[in-house]
């Protein structure tokens, strides 16, 4: 070959232009893939350049351009070094760039899922076993200016590598994709395709422009000389690219209904690839046609691949393989046979082109598939699912971008819900600004969420029911947990407040409340006055299925928005416990008052009468208890008996004006009444009754203790006097002390009754009595004297009328004889008032016939029976007829006898005899 230095220069320039294509590929492929993988794609582009150059230098160039072994494979020029011919160096560089181009096509197709290490192996496979072999078949002998490869010798023409470079890259891409499979999420089960947008389309477009620029060298340099053909070749290359782009847009825009970026990118590349095989043998119009078809194939071929779920990330297969096949075939279809000048007619040319396409494809696909399959077994081609999701930038290279950091933060946050995380802010970048805005949003969100959680925790824990109502009285979404407990209703939000209350309260209150609620929202009404009208400040509710009454309170507070009331806050409280406490305190207070009352009453009451009442009270209660214990008849019969007894008890207490007991027995009686009406009546219902009875028993006990205390007080008082008397060694003095009091008592009662009396106790020898008897005798004396003054002695007028001294006389005497003591009480009063007794007897229901038969003894017995008193007025001194019966009881206790003589209107003489005890 006769080559000039200018040829070498041109080849070197062309090599540099082809080298620029590496940058174009890097920009294009990283631009149309997602940013999480962009670094990985770019690194692969640079890496495959270096690796392929090494392999091509070591082995590939020799296999491709070494002296041919039967047209199948080159056999020398391994580990290439420059020879004496400088042009060979330029040739090597130019061819090495081609090899790298073939290798780098794969990186785009398999982007976003392939392991970096496996990719390097694939690069080695292309540079060693695929590209050089097919290259030798077609271009073998070019180093020596002759045709040595078997396909070349058959007349197969591939000017700048539509098949050798681009189809080979496409075939290997296809093999790799068949092994790899599509990216995660690319295809849906119904075969529809999820678009995966590129990260930086301007870069991709710049990449295509660089490719286009590089192609000047790719095709223009393939003449391997700076000759006249070069300008035409570059012209047709440019026109094919332009036509490819235009045609892709023209066809694709209406088809896709949008001027998709991929149309211009793939259309341009497709046009360039298609013209590569034939740029030197076609004319300009044909180059436009070839480029246009190539562009359309490249732009729309991706759809075909998607049909069979081959996920080519950058449409490398349509642009390089499909358009490459088309371009190679176009040599046969449109090639100027004169320029071709290989002795083949058009059909033969088409035939040999087809053969070349077929065998090259077969070799490239089979060998690459087999080798990649083996590689996959050694190093799995595909990254793990997690890595693929995370992105290959970080997973494969530990490289991050600010958008990746933002993504990581968001991902972490979406998984943990941790609002404390903040995105890293890269200053002066768009992502940094997004991150900083995001952080601000998060600040507000966190503040709100934290504040809200504080409010809700207050609402959850506060004891009062807090809630808001709007103008329609609807309860707002946030209310305190206590609300549900107080109103015994769940999910109050959105409920009407009055609807909530209606089932719980009476109709009157419902009406009042419905009048009141609108006033809460009427700004014209003075708030203080409105608040005072609140009918719910304290009200009683009845819950369904609960017979008890509960006391609630709801107070309101207007929430002003400017001058209008938007909402009203309500505070609901359960006052039941408080009300019950108040009630029981009230009861205790009343009981205390009653007890004071009781105390006062008892102080003024004849102790003997009280003693009798208490005794009776106890025994009646015991009787009631026995009725329960024996349980004769049905529970209702029992209640009937109990009711009778309780009524009797109440009557007696009323007689003595013991209001406290009257009230208590009244409550007992009402309880019995309630139980009698209750249906069904259960035995357990008697529990309350039993408790009430035990309370009454305790009251009886208290009265007994009280009585004892009065007794002991009296005794202490008397004992003191007797001690004093003893110190004066005069028992008479002690007796005189009592006698003096007795006299005073008689005079006081007489004065109260408008009578006059004198007591003669000269012979009252109290010292004859033992201490225990003395106590009883003193009580008896009090009763006897009281009885004489009240019932015996007449008023002064009557006495004068009867011819007596106006002052009545009572004589008291104690004497001892024959081991017996005789106590005597004489008065000069009216004796026994038989007429009054008869009247009383008839009134109390005795039959007139029976009374008419009564003699003196019968009247006496009646007078002492305890059922009668002849006093006209019931007062503290007498009138209940209980005094004398008590005396009779005491005499019985002493083992004594009583004898009474009287003369009407003249005198009464009572004698009591009982055995003397030793003192």
């Amino acid at each position, binding site marked *: 070959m006769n080559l000039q230095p200018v040829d070498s220069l041109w080849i070197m320039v062309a090599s540099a232009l082809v080298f620029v294509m590496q940058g174009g590929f890097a920009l294009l492929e990283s631009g149309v893939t997602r940013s999480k993988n962009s670094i990985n794609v770019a690194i692969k582009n640079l890496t495959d350049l270096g690796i392929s150059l090494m392999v091509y230098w070591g082995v590939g160039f020799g296999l491709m351009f070494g002296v041919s072994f039967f047209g199948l494979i080159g056999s020398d020029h391994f580990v290439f070094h420059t020879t004496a011919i400088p042009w060979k160096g330029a040739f090597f560089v130019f061819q090495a760039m081609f090899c790298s181009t073939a290798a780098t096509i794969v990186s785009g197709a398999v982007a976003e899922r392939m392991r970096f290490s496996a990719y390097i192996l694939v690069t080695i496979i292309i540079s060693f076993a695929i590209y050089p072999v097919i290259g030798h078949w077609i271009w073998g002998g070019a180093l020596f200016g002759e045709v040595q490869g078997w396909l070349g010798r058959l007349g197969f023409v591939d000017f700048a590598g539509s098949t050798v470079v681009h189809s080979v890259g496409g075939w290997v891409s296809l093999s790799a994709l068949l092994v790899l499979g599509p990216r995660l999420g690319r295809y849906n089960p119904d075969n529809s395709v999820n678009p995966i947008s590129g990260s930086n389309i301007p870069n991709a477009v710049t990449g295509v422009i660089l490719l286009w620029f590089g192609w000047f060298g790719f095709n223009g340099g393939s003449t391997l000389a700076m000759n006249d053909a070069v300008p035409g070749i570059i012209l047709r290359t440019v026109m094919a690219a332009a036509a490819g782009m235009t045609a892709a847009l023209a066809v694709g825009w209406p088809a896709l209904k949008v001027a998709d970026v991929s149309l211009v990118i793939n259309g341009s590349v497709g046009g360039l690839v298609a013209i590569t095989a034939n740029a030197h043998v076609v004319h300009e119009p044909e180059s436009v046609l070839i480029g246009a078809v190539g562009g359309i194939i490249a732009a729309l071929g991706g759809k075909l691949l998607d049909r069979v779920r081959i996920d080519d990330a950058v449409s490398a297969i349509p642009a390089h393989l499909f358009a490459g096949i088309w371009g190679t075939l176009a040599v046969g279809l449109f090639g100027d046979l004169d320029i071709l000048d290989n002795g083949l007619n058009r059909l033969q040319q088409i035939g040999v082109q087809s053969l070349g396409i077929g065998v090259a494809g077969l070799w490239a696909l089979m060998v690459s598939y087999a080798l990649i399959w083996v590689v996959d077994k050694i190093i799995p081609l595909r990254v793990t699912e997690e890595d693929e999701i995370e992105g290959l930038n970080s997973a494969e290279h530990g490289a991050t971008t600010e958008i990746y950091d933002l993504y990581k933060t968001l991902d972490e946050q979406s998984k943990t819900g941790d609002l404390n995380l903040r995105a890293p802010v890269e200053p002066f970048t768009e992502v940094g600004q997004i991150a900083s805005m995001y952080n601000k949003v998060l600040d507000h969100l966190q503040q709100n969420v934290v504040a809200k959680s504080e409010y809700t925790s207050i609402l959850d824990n506060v004891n009062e029911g807090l809630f808001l109502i709007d103008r329609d009285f609807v309860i707002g979404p946030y209310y305190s947990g206590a609300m549900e407990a107080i109103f015994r209703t769940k999910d109050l939000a959105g409920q009407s407040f009055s609807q909530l209350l209606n089932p719980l309260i009476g109709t009157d209150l419902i009406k009042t409340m419905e009048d009141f609620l609108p006033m809460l929202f009427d700004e014209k009404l003075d708030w203080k006055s409105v608040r005072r009208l609140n009918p719910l400040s304290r009200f009683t509710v009845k819950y369904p299925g609960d017979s008890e009454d509960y006391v609630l309170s709801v107070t309101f507070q207007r929430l002003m928005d400017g001058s209008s009331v938007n909402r009203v806050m309500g505070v609901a409280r359960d006052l039941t416990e408080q009300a019950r406490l108040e009630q029981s305190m009230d009861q205790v207070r009343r009981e205390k008052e009653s007890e004071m009352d009781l105390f006062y009453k008892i102080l003024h009451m004849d102790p003997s009468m009280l003693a009798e009442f208490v005794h009776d009270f106890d025994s009646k209660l015991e009787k009631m208890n026995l009725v329960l*214990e024996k349980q004769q008849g049905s529970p209702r019969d029992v209640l009937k008996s109990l009711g009778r007894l309780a009524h009797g008890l109440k009557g007696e207490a009323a007689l003595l004006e013991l209001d406290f007991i009257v009230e208590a027995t009244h409550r007992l009686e009402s309880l019995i009444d309630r139980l009698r009406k209750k249906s069904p009546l259960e035995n357990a219902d008697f529990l309350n009754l*039993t*408790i009430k009875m035990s309370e009454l028993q305790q009251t009886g006990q208290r009265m007994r203790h009280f009585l004892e205390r009065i007794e002991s007080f009296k005794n202490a008082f008397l004992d003191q006097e007797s001690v004093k008397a003893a110190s004066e060694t005069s028992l008479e003095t002690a007796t005189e002390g009592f006698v003096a009091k007795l006299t005073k008592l008689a005079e006081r009662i007489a004065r109260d009754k408008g009578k006059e009396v004198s007591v003669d106790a000269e012979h009252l020898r109290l010292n004859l009595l033992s201490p225990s008897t003395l106590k009883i005798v003193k009580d008896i004396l009090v009763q006897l004297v009281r009885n004489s003054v009240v019932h015996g002695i007449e008023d002064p007028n009557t006495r004068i009328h009867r011819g007596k001294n106006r002052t009545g006389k009572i004589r008291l005497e104690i004497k001892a004889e024959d081991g017996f003591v005789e106590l005597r009480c004489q008065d000069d009063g009216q004796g026994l008032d038989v007429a009054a007794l008869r009247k009383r007897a008839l009134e109390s229901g005795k039959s007139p016939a029976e009374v008419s038969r009564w003699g003196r003894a019968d009247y006496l017995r009646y007078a002492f029976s305890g059922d009668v008193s002849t006093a006209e007025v019931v007062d503290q001194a007498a009138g209940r007829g209980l005094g004398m019966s008590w005396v009779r009881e005491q005499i019985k206790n002493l083992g004594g006898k009583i004898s009474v003589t009287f003369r009407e209107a003249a005198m009464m003489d009572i004698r009591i005899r009982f055995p003397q005890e030793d003192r």
Partner: protein
Amino acid sequence: MTETELRHFIDTVFNYFQQLTGQGPQMGLPYIKNQDSVVMDFTGLIGISGPRKGGIYLTTKRDLLVKMTQIVLGDSSGDDQVLLDMVGEMANTIAGNLQKYFGADFQISVPIVVSGKPTDVSLRLKPPSFVIPFSWEGMKACLVAGLES
């Protein structure tokens, strides 16, 4: 004592029999005892200390205990010692269940079991004692409780 508390006594006894035998007892009318006591053939007494000082006892007729030992222990010997154990166990379980209601302050002693008619059984009780008579399958027993209020 309050009505609610006494109702709880009734419920506890009822549940005890219901759960063990599937047959709840019939309650009689409750009444009060102050000094004297109600004692049947066998008695299990539990002393209570804490704020509610006093005692609870379960007293039953012999036949009831014999039936219960058959059901609960599978022992039909009718041996006095077995019956005493049974009445103690019953008193203990009932008092233990009551403890759940009255709280941990309601401290219960180990059961004291007696047969016959001892006079001092009510000494542990704080009057007034409430007697809740009941009959189970026609056989009589009483739960008696006297606690400080």
